[in-house]
């Protein structure tokens, strides 16, 4: 098939053959495989059509079988965020004097601007939720144990990158709540030894000014999305190497893959449906422009930082803040290095013990989140 004359030998329609003479379409298509969209390895030396046919004869990997969709769902949400984000960037102007006004014009005057804006916001919430749910699944099913250490670490880093993307996005609208949420979040970050200093180096100081807005904008539209994409790719690569579930592999052949494709399409449709519904029925309220001298009621750190905030504030006053920050960082490092801390013993630690620990950790997280929420008055 591969033969000396690909144009003549290929069974594909002529335009595809023409392109394949000049570009390796299989290699390009295998990009989807790398992100786990097409769940089978492709032989990139072969023409696309042949490579796919060959791949379809192999069984569907177990990680790609319904209802194990959190990974692919996070990818879909990232795609939605990218598309809506680009649309928002057509109108948004990242300077303190224009940020609020341009966001308002975008939401109030631009046709369907409100819709794109709200879908972007809800997709961000959904992505954080899905990434957290995925971490929860790894945690409860002890999927961080060898050989899946890297999958866990990459998943956690992806969640952290997503929270930072969310945080930087909150400032961009330059609204009162967004501005003060950022201020509160940055206060927590500055209390962290080393990481706080690193953050200060990147952002340029504790004040939230026009340069911070520019830097947050750059982080939000370039650095963090790239990091997130890279981490999702790494996660997918890890999953393809070591697998993720104990379920058996699926069937092989065109039918099995068609079923899988239909599952994906239905999932994508329902995801879009959920986002559209949330954006239409529960849009975020309009807010006043940011005033650095007036803190609005209920200006809290974002929800994913509430636990850290509550934890930091739960100590008596004499306990130095850097030490509290160090404890938060210790918890973060423990979470990151969990695969190496929770090594099963020789006889193999029981999964039940790990689950009890997981439940305790989540209960502590929820308790501190609740405590952090309670620290601020207002809605």
């Amino acid at each position: 098939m591969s033969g000396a004359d690909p144009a003549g030998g290929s069974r594909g329609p002529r335009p595809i053959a023409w392109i394949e003479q000049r570009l390796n379409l299989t290699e390009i298509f295998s990009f989807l495989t790398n992100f786990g969209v097409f769940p089978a390895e492709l032989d990139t030396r072969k023409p696309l059509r042949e490579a796919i046919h060959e791949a379809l004869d192999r069984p569907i990997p177990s990680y790609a079988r319904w209802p194990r969709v959190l990974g692919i769902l996070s990818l879909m949400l990232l795609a939605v965020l990218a598309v809506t984000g680009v649309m928002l960037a057509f109108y948004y102007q990242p300077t303190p004097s224009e940020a609020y006004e341009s966001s308002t014009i975008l939401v109030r005057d631009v046709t369907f601007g409100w819709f794109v804006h709200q879908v972007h916001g809800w997709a961000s919430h959904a992505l954080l939720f899905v990434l957290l749910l995925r971490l929860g699944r790894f945690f409860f099913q002890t999927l961080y144990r060898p050989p899946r250490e890297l999958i866990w670490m990459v998943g956690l880093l992806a969640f952290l990158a997503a929270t930072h993307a969310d945080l930087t996005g909150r400032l961009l609208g330059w609204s009162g709540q967004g501005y003060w949420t950022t201020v509160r979040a940055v206060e927590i970050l500055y209390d962290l030894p080393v990481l706080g200093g690193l953050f200060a180096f990147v952002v340029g100081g504790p004040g939230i000014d026009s340069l911070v807005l520019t830097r947050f904008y750059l982080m939000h539209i370039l650095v963090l999305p790239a990091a997130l994409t890279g981490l999702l790719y790494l996660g997918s690569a890890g999953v393809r190497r070591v697998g993720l579930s104990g379920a058996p592999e699926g069937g092989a052949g065109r039918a099995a893959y068609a079923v899988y494709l239909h599952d994906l399409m239905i999932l994508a449709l329902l995801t879009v449906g959920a986002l559209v519904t949330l954006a239409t029925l529960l849009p975020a309220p309009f807010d006043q422009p940011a005033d650095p001298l007036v803190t609005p009621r209920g200006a809290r750190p974002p929800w994913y930082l509430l636990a850290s905030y509550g934890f930091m504030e739960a100590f008596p006053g004499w306990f130095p803040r850097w030490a509290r920050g160090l404890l938060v960082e210790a918890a973060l490092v423990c979470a990151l290095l969990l695969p190496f801390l929770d090594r099963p013993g020789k006889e193999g630690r029981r999964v039940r013990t790990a689950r009890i620990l997981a439940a305790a950790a989540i209960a502590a997280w929820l308790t501190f989140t609740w405590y952090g929420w309670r620290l601020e008055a207002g809605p």
Partner: protein
Amino acid sequence: MNPAAVLALAASAAALPAGEGGAASLCGLCHPDVRVQYETSIHRSEEISCVSCHGGDPSAGDVAGAHGRGFRGRVRRAGIPDLCASCHADAGIMRPYNLPTDQLALYRTSAHGRLLARGDDRAAVCTDCHGAHDIRSARDPSSRVHSLNVPQTCARCHSDASLRAAFGHLGDPYADFAASVHGEALLRRGNLSAPDCSRCHGAHGAAPPGMGDVDKVCGQCHQTARYWFRTGPHATAMAREGMSECASCHGHHATAAAPVSLLETACSGCHAAGTAPLELASRMKTLYDGAGEEIETARALVDKAARVPLYVEDYRARLQEADTSLIESLPTMHSLDLSRVEHLTARARSIGREVQAEVNGKLGDRAWRRLGLAAFWFYLLVTVAILARRRRRWAGGGGR
């Protein structure tokens, strides 16, 4: 007095702050309570000493010496205004303080001053309002004559039941004032732009404003109301009938915030039912009520839209514009010129209606959004159903 006692006195005098009239003053040794009061006064910080008013020798160590040379002792009430004026009416002395020097002249024209001139010691003199030894700057909030404290200071005499009975004054002006819109603003909210007693009656020249002067007094603040009043027929008619211009409808000490409903009650005091003036009043009230209702309806709609949430800041700004027109229109009623009232209330009303229409439009868009969402879900579910069916067929081995 033995030498040891004199030495002890001299030692304690040296311990006192210097600067009371240049030489160390020993008056406080026998008058410690007066000295304590004096220490808080503006005269203390300006180094006006005991002898400036009382005479005598502040450096003498014994009573006979201190109360000797030029000692005036306790000042007679009737002599107090002239004593204070010996400095305060002297332009040369007052110039560095930038204080007025006309207080004595004004005082002599006041009801207080004329009463005192008739030999009535009950008349208020300088010290009754300003204090004697503990006089403070009128800008000092703890001063008796600071704007916030003036009503209480006047009330010490003017709300005193026996004094009121003696002078045949009816009513308690302080109680009336405290309940009034002015008293509420000044005493409860501390609003220093609200008038105290002296803003209407004068301070040193205090006297009740005469008939025909009330509109000038009220008009110092309520300028537009006065302007429109003077263009209307009430100004000449009330002057002819000897009626108090503003107070006839609004009262004086107890003047309340003027609601539009005053048009229903105040006019019928003079005008008979069914006459043209009452008809005019009711038409003006209808105009005000109509504009107010349109604005309130619009405001409620804007609040509803804000909860949706829709962007409503523009509408809020326009409602403020409508409020301004309505507020602007209120004083024009004093002209009794319906067309003027109509002009401004119509503006307020039309802004209110415009905002209502636009917000209703936006709320209507919202209904369309929901309808669109329902249609979207219909097509989405149809698509999902088709996909699910195709999926089942593939799963069942049916293929395409």
